[in-house]
């Protein structure tokens, strides 16, 4: 299509000059993003670890699976 070609030509003219530091700047920023992600991941794992330790310690001290000693005497039936 002729109009499409015209638009293409219009868009294609005068490409901007590429600044020489483009790649270095982008890589620096990208590395910063990666470092931030690694830090966040580490913090999350530490949090998970702390939670696991806390639950373990609580479970070992409170022993929630042990039946608590009965405080009432069963009623006497069948005499």
């Amino acid at each position, binding site marked *: 299509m002729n109009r499409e070609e015209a638009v293409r030509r*219009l868009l294609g003219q005068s490409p901007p000059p590429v600044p020489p530091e*483009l*790649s270095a700047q*982008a890589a620096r920023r990208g590395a910063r*993003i990666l470092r931030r992600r690694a830090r966040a991941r580490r913090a999350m794992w530490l949090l998970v670890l702390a939670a696991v330790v806390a639950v373990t310690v609580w479970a070992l001290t409170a022993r929630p699976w042990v039946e608590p000693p009965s405080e009432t005497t069963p009623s006497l039936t069948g005499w």
Partner: protein
Amino acid sequence: MRPRQASRDLCRALEFEAYVAGAGGRLLHTATLLTAEAPDDNPHARRLLIRALAHTYASWDRLRGDDPYEVTRRYLAIRFAHGVRHRHRGLLRSRPLPQSPLARLSPRERLVLVLRFHEGVAEERTAALLGLPADRVRTICHRATAALLDPPREPAPAVGGVEAAPS
């Protein structure tokens, strides 16, 4: 552990540098068309592109055969659309410089036109990328083409070289 990490960083940096050396010019051209800035004065386009490239760098190890160019272009388009939406709400809306013939179009028209004709993205993929129905993309594209090739009656101020476009 550490040496392997260092060698991976170096490898990524080298690959990325080669990629930007090859694709940077074209991507900057695309970004400059989107922001409708002059080719030699395009701070917004540069900022947009550096953001998109940094994002590509950060996901470089997880590309797994995906085309990095496509990743950067997708991020560029999404970032641009997002930025426009947010700037519309605020008071500070930077006017595009009138040097570019694209400055007459709305940001969305520019985005569709640049993706379709400059980048050669298919209609369906453009629609999917922007979250629009395909016929809407076609309509926007027609309208933008008409606005670009048949300028309105009143002379646009300081627009040079537009009349040179054959219609």
